């Protein structure tokens, strides 16, 4: 690799599938990488597969994956010259970006100024307005005092949305339709925001009733070149968290796509952005769109853009961080076909999406043409209670939306994870819904079409399940639960809690 600034070894300040994703990119570029892990992740997949790894602290994120000091120490100790933050944790922390640079480490992401500017949704809104990027009508700012929230909400008119100023990923977010719910919503959002992002500031904006969530991948270099890599439609959300993403969006006409692409690049330039980022928009039913926020990180759903453009976004992040110019121009980016991503969560969709922790006693992830699995787990591993319950991402490609969706349904049918609850059957139900097939999706899709969803099992399968139960009962314990391995293996959740309490 001919990188401008020498990057030889990258510390990956994250866990799970994204840590593995970044290590893969490093390996493909012939670069070294180092994993970090908390005590709860001693036997996590990202540690087992790492070339080198460093224990950085107890399970609590604040004492491990969110500890800037420990991560910088780990990078120094292992001779790394760069740090990739992944998504979540410290990925959008301006202080972390700054401290890395001060410590002589290349931060693979935007500089602290851009993160600060865009991380604060109030300031970024002003910047975008100044750059002629459309921002949401009726949006109002409140100071954090409940009375100001009340008067702002009344001025805009309910429903309103409470959002964490330094948020993302649906955390610290509440829709309020009834003024009586406002207090709880503001407090709950603040607490979640504090816990997830270390900043309790929340604000309020007009809530569109049937918007689509459309985001544009952007990529910019230190020389000031900025391009977009087209859109991702992320309207299928539960609890304000995306679970199915696709590209292209079935809603965009070539004209709207062109306008939004121009707006996305304008947003990147207005913020003097460098590295990979995402400009999020809400698309209203009438085709008008509004700037929502810029995510200053690689996104969970970045693989669908990689599938249709053939561009490896993480490798490009690394090249840009080394000072290289973008390796492509806007006209080189010609998306081809359709890609879909489903996020596999350890949760129970039939029970309020209650997260599910514990041991995955059996895991068999599918393998096929036009299928990519970005996984952070393995058969026999523990899903700890301390972190986001994402297990894996299933990504399919097809020549069109129909083929991509069909391939996704087959992949999900072949996705087998036992021992914990997952949302696989829920995802299958969504993809099979006629309104999904028709492309009639919006952020409230699941609330409207899948309230109180429960999994209905055909009784015909119960007979064969009983045969399976008989055969399994005759068989010895699974390899992962028997013999020396399990005794050597991950401690139970109770042991982990105990060590956390000590």
């Amino acid at each position, binding site marked *: 690799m001919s990188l401008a600034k020498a990057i030889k070894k990258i510390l990956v300040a994250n866990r799970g599938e994204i840590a593995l994703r970044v290590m893969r990119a490093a390996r493909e570029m012939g670069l070294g990488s180092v994993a970090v892990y908390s005590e709860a992740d001693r036997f996590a997949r990202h540690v087992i597969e790492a070339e080198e790894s460093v224990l950085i602290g107890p399970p609590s994120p604040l004492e491990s994956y969110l500890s800037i000091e420990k991560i910088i120490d780990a990078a120094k100790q292992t001779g790394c010259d760069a740090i990739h933050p992944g998504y979540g944790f410290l990925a959008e922390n301006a202080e972390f970006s700054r401290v890395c640079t001060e410590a002589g480490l290349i931060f693979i992401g935007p500089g602290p100024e851009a993160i600060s500017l865009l991380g604060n949704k109030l300031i970024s809104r002003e910047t975008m307005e100044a750059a002629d990027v459309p921002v949401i009508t009726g949006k109002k700012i409140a100071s954090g005092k409940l009375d100001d929230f009340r008067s702002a909400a009344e001025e805009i008119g309910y429903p309103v949305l409470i959002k964490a100023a330094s948020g993302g990923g649906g*955390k610290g977010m509440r829709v309020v339709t009834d003024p009586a719910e406002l207090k*709880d919503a503001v407090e*709950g959002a603040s*607490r*979640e925001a504090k*816990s*997830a992002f270390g900043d309790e500031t929340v604000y309020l904006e007009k809530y569109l009733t049937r918007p689509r969530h459309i985001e544009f991948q952007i990529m910019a270099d230190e020389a000031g070149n900025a391009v977009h890599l087209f859109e991702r439609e992320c309207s299928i959300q539960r*609890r304000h968290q995306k679970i199915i993403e696709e590209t292209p969006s079935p809603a965009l006409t070539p004209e709207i796509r062109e306008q939004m692409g121009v707006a996305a690049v304008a947003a990147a330039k207005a913020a003097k952005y460098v590295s990979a980022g995402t400009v999020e928009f809400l698309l209203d039913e009438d085709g008008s769109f509004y700037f929502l926020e810029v995510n200053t990180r690689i996104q969970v759903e970045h693989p669908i853009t990689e599938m249709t453009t053939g561009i490896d976004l993480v490798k490009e992040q690394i090249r840009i961080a080394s000072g290289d110019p973008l390796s492509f121009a806007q006209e080189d980016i010609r998306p081809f076909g359709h890609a879909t991503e489903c996020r596999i969560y*350890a949760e129970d969709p039939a029970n*309020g*999406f*209650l*997260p*599910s*922790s514990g*041991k995955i*006693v*059996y895991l*068999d992830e599918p393998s096929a043409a036009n299928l990519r699995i970005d996984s952070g787990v393995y058969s026999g591993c523990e899903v700890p*209670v*301390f*972190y*986001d*319950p994402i297990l894996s991402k299933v990504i399919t490609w097809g020549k069109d939306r129909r083929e991509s969706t069909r391939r996704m349904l087959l992949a999900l*049918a072949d996705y*087998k994870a*036992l*021992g914990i609850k997952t949302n696989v*059957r829920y995802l299958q139900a969504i993809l099979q819904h006629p309104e999904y097939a028709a492309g009639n999706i919006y952020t409230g899709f699941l609330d409207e079409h899948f309230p109180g969803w429960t*999994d209905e*099992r*055909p009784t*015909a*399968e*119960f*007979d*064969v*399940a*009983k*045969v*399976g*139960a*008989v*055969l*399994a*009962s*005759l*068989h*010895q*314990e*699974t390899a*992962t*639960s028997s013999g020396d391995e399990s005794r050597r293996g991950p401690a139970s*959740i*109770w042991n982990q*809690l105990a060590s*956390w*309490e000590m």
Partner: protein
Amino acid sequence: MDFEFVHNDERLTVRAEVGKNSIRVVDGDSEISYDFFSADGSLFTISANGKATRVVAVKDGETIYVSTPGGDFQFRLPPSVDGDTFSEAGGGSGDKSKLVAPMPGKVVKVLVEEGQAVTEKEKLVIVEAMKMENPLVAPYPAQVVKINCEEGQLVDTEIILVELKELEN
């Protein structure tokens, strides 16, 4: 041979004769023969009348997990010592007046006080786990008898966080 399982809190008996590559299941007067094959002891190909179904079946401790194309099923082996008491896993005793956390986590908010009357579905305590807030709500109108937790405390699914006394309507 009879195989005993617990499925959805109900006892279940499967009468089956297991051969080398086949299994015959008898249910009253009806009888089905299946062929089966497993390469690794977990993934089974089970066929009847030439149609094959791929089934994952694994035993982990006292639980048997079975995944079929139609969905996943969970069986438990019946308790060997005392056949009468099998409580729902992770769900406490089933007594609705004693509230436990749905999963291990941290108490982030206690919303009620001892002695207070609460309405149905009123939020009592919020437990954060895996980065999401999960509220514990009252199952019916009730009086709060006891609160066994405080904000910031780590709790598992075995600690009774709140005890209620149901109120007559």
